[in-house]
């Protein structure tokens, strides 16, 4: 008994301690959990900025960093008939030749980057309880806009994808790896954007705005091929919101946040943490590559024929390699011939903003909404919007009717190299026809299954049998 007594005392003390309410309180100060991270408006605001930081991507060549939209042109422009690599080498050239493999690092980097954006949006949404009543609605609207933006790109690139609409833990494998039908993903996108439209105003261009949400929602409706009248109404509301075309096409890309920009991702020159290397990679051996996103002969022909006064600012000859042609939008180190000043002292730390939505896109989508899936229109409102875009390019001969084909061609030229072409081809139902012909002419190996990217192999491996691959990979 003499020996046992101290043990009993010890156990008793232990029981007393563990029964105390404050056993694990206050919350540890040296470690932060996601649930308690945002405790007031100011902190939530930092989470909101964090979402845009995730879209912006990291300017580095470290393959484990999330490049996000800084490498989006590989998956969109280089997979269309607009651009290709200069050297046709490596995994970068898989896109132009339609031989993308499931282990392609750029495909998986984009996938991871965009789920990071979704995670950060979900993080903001999970913290709304901590927001003041005045700010809660706008935080929600902003996070939902960003989440919808990310899902809209993912669903168009990868098809059926996991749908994560809240914070999840590492053990929730089911939701992380179960691919859901695209229609279900679109349901979330539409409801998120409807919330965004009603909760935002037009204060920002580098952050979500009402006009950006309306434009994106209209694009979602056009992509689904439903609600054309609703899309038209949304676009007419944006048209009436004070945006205008820059009189000079060049200024759209070299005057930041001009009146034509609806939503752009902001970059700051010469800051590693806040700049982009998109522009440098498009030059001859200035970035990591010897040059990517070079303009195809097919695109040059289209731009020469339909560009009007825009053509010089769409593409230019590569001075170092005169048989090659580069994109002339977003040049980081200036071009004296075109009257473009350098935007950064180091082109790899470029500050050119990346425009996601602009007014010319709205005007052309307005025509598309009026076409409503039909072959041609001569409605006055459609002609007016179409003519506005063409007039700026000096193509002032009045148009009396617009076919679907005219509209697709006009979009190709006006929005060339802004990562629209691939999505436009798919949305217009022309992708298989146009890309097969393009592929045959260039000896590439396009199949209809190439219209969806592969689910990254690493995801399939991690899913332990839950995830299946897209056909053709």
């Amino acid at each position, binding site marked *: 008994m003499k020996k046992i007594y101290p043990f009993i005392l010890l156990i008793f003390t232990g029981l007393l301690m563990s029964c105390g309410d404050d056993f694990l309180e206050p919350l540890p100060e040296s470690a932060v959990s996601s649930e308690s991270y945002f405790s007031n408006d100011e902190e939530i605001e930092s989470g909101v900025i964090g979402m845009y930081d995730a879209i912006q991507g990291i300017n580095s060549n470290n393959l484990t960093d999330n490049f996000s939209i800084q490498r989006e042109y590989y998956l969109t422009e280089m997979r269309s008939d607009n651009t290709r690599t200069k050297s046709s080498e490596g995994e970068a050239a898989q896109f132009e030749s339609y031989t993308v493999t499931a282990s392609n690092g750029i495909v998986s980097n984009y996938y991871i980057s965009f789920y990071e954006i979704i995670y950060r949006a979900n993080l903001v949404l999970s913290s709304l309880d901590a927001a003041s009543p005045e700010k809660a609605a706008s935080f929600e609207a902003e996070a939902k806009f960003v989440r919808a933006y990310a899902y809209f790109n993912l669903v168009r690139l990868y098809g059926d994808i996991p749908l994560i609409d809240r914070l999840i833990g590492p053990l929730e494998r089911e939701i992380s790896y179960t691919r859901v039908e695209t229609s279900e993903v679109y349901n979330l996108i539409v409801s998120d954007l409807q919330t965004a439209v009603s909760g935002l105003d037009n204060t920002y261009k580098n952050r979500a705005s009402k006009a950006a949400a309306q434009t994106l929602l209209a694009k979602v409706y056009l992509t689904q091929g439903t609600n054309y009248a609703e899309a038209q109404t949304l676009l007419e509301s944006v048209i009436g919101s004070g945006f205008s075309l820059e009189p000079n096409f060049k200024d759209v890309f070299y005057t930041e946040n001009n009146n034509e920009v609806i939503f752009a991702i902001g970059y700051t020159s010469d800051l590693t943490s806040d700049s982009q290397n998109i522009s440098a990679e498009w030059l001859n051996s200035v970035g990591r590559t010897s040059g990517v996103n070079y303009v195809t002969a097919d695109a040059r022909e289209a731009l020469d024929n339909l560009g009007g006064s825009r053509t010089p600012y769409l593409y230019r000859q590569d001075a170092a390699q005169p048989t090659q042609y580069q994109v002339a939008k977003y040049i980081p180190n200036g071009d004296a011939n075109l009257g473009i000043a350098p935007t950064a002292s180091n082109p790899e730390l470029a500050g050119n903003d990346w425009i996601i939505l602009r007014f010319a896109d709205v005007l052309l989508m307005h025509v598309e909404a009026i076409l409503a899936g039909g072959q041609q229109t001569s409605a006055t409102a459609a002609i007016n919007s179409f003519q506005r875009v063409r007039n700026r390019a000096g193509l002032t001969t009045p148009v009396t009717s617009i076919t679907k084909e005219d509209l697709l061609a006009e979009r190709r030229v006006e929005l060339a190299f802004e990562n629209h072409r691939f999505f436009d081809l798919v949305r217009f139902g022309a992708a*298989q*026809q146009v890309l097969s012909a393009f592929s045959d002419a260039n000896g590439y190996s396009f199949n*209809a299954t190439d219209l969806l990217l592969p689910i990254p192999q690493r995801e399939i491996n991690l899913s332990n049998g839950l995830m299946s691959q897209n056909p053709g990979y």
Partner: protein
Amino acid sequence: MNTIKQIAGINFSKFLVAGCMLFGLTACDFEYDLPEEGSIEDLTPPEASFTASQSDADFLTYNFANFSGSATTYVWDFGDGNTATTVDAVNTYPDEGTYTITLTASDALGKSDTFTSDITIVEPEAPTAITPVIGAADFQDGPDVCGSGDSRDCWRISGGSIHQTTSDGRNGTRGAKYTAASSNSPRVTYQAVTVSPNTKYILTAYYAIQSDGDTVRGTVIDGQLSNYSEFSSASLLGQTVGDVNGGKGNFNRLVVEFGTGASGEISILFDSGSNASESYLDDVSIIPAE
């Protein structure tokens, strides 16, 4: 085998390597094995699948997208006698009709799978614009007119005084009459109409006025009103003022050309200016411009 035993007794280790090699050689020689020996089942047999989409340029041409898995060769039968062996395929059909498309996908092990789907080809009709029926367009009363017999019941709007009707209409039939400004509250003629969105239309009506400076006005409104008070702030698609003084009984044409927007729900409204004399309206119609 006997040889190995004998040698092993003398110097096993010396000949072990040679023995193993001999063994290896024998083991690699499948010459006398049965053909099925050691082969395993084809665990990933082909799965045939495709989707068809109509071409924009020609309704008889279809693009076929091949979504088969685990296959290397494909045979398409388009159901019209044409065939193909490409991965994806395009076929132009001779005529309208229902065709059965069969895709047979095979792998190199001789397994195959077949997927069949029907398409029905119908020439798409050019969309025709709605030609709306205007209730009591000629302002005639009659047993079935506007559900009540009174032609004015087709033209009422709350908050506005309805026009009077008169036998001084166009061609001697009945028409609408607007009182002179001095005599009574202003009269309005309103009707909600459904037409096609994004289409050009022409609204035509006939008016007669008796004093210089008098007017009759026709307006097309984007949307439909529930009260006359909404008119002043309504968004208009078109408006024309008729001011040709032809005298009583001499009708002039009033034309409003307009294009509809996202919604085909519109309304038309006629009223008069601060007229010195009575004025008249008759025979309203809306037709598509093309």
